[in-house]
């Protein structure tokens, strides 16, 4: 079986499991909603101000939601000792990683898609710049968080205090990507600057770290 075929099968399995375990997804959704509401209480800006700060708020909220999602998907694997099964099976580790990363990407994107209208409502957001740019930034940014997040989740489940360990090792490395996402989003919302540099930086970040993740995942999975 080719790498992509194994990846696709694993992804399909994950998505099916996700769909069946709807309560996990629902609790994540509720968490995301709570985050949006609490942020809205904390900052009550005018329409002009909101365009300036929404970029940061939205991405911090997405970041929290992503961490919750990432912890969940690996926790399930750990519960059923699936990790050991993968290690023993002849399936290439790269397929497993791709399946997990894409699965997480889909999950986090769903969360983002549900949180965004809430943000628009609470902050009366209207973008000055073109919306398609926001979509590109969202895709590049989400992949940046998810690709490293999936990798680090695999690392952190082998530690004590694993729930806190994931954000602890993920956040510092994600800082340049976060800076890019936030600044790019703000640039588009306010229409005051071109997000082009940031989008290029995100693309480079995604490329570099996807490569590093694929290269090192096998080593990390088999570490014992």
């Amino acid at each position, binding site marked *: 079986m080719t790498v992509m075929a194994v990846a696709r099968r694993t992804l399909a399995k994950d998505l099916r499991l996700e769909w069946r375990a709807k309560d996990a997804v629902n609790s994540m959704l509720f968490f995301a909603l709570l985050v949006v509401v609490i942020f809205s209480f904390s900052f009550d800006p005018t329409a002009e101000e909101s365009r300036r700060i929404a970029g940061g708020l939205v991405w911090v909220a997405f970041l929290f939601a992503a961490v919750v999602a990432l912890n969940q998907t690996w926790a399930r694997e750990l519960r059923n000792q699936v990790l050991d099964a993968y290690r023993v099976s002849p399936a290439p580790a790269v397929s497993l990683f791709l399946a997990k990363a894409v699965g997480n990407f889909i999950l986090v994107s769903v969360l983002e898609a549900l949180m965004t209208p809430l943000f628009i409502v609470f902050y009366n957001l209207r973008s000055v710049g073109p919306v398609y740019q926001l979509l590109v930034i969202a895709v590049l940014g989400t992949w940046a968080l998810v690709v490293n997040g999936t990798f680090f989740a695999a690392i952190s489940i082998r*530690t004590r205090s694993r729930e806190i360990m994931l954000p602890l*090792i993920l956040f*510092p490395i994600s800082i340049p990507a976060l*800076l890019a996402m936030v600044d790019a989003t703000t640039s588009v919302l306010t229409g005051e600057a071109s997000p082009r540099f940031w989008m290029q930086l995100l693309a480079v970040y995604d490329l570099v770290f996807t490569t590093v993740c694929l290269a090192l995942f096998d080593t990390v999975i088999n570490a014992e």
Partner: protein
Amino acid sequence: MKRTFTFTFFVLVTLGLLAYALYQGLVVAPTEATMGDVQRIFYYHLPHAWVAFLLFFTNFLASIWYLVRRTGRADALALASAEVGVVFCTVVLVTGPLWARPVWGIWWTWDARLTSTLVLWLIYVSYLVLRRFATGAQTQVLAAALAIFGFVDVPIVYLSIRYFRTQHPQPVIAGGEGSGLDPRMWSAVLWNLAGFLSFALLLIWLRYRLALAENAVEEAHADRALGPEAETRAAKPEARGAAPEVGNKPR
């Protein structure tokens, strides 16, 4: 005996360099025109930044070496360079604001270099935390992987923060290197660099040996726990000069 002699000699050389560098920085170097004597913080601030970066690069190389060869020495070097690197990085982050406050009136300005140093510090502290919280023999492999991620991130961090700063300009704390530095100032920088580099090597050497010694003690404990027969059985392959076990046990 010879080892202790070399060590003591090295310590004396280091102390000598540091003392002379202090003299260079506080006395020989001329007072800066606009900032005054406070600018002398620079002679500690900059060398520590350079040394920290060098140490993190060492951690990167040692981590790669570890993943390839899986030797205990590679891992010990990775740990030592990261830890000492964080210490030096902390000094940069403390001296920076202490310099900024009297000169600019504010403690922090998200200045490009200081912000990059902060991110660097965060990355390597997270590496040290992972090493502390990971359990079992896999710690070393996981940490090495994280170290590679961390260092690969460094150029991206610098790029992104530099661009961010051109978008949102702020006062620059560490006035550009080589931007009209009096040669006597350069000499102070270099002497302090030499002194602190030597000091860093000393610290790394100490930490490295500590790590190796602690690993040896831990292994001895483990061997004891397995029982006296296991201990003699474990001793035998060494005596026979057999090939080391395949696996991730540090040697």
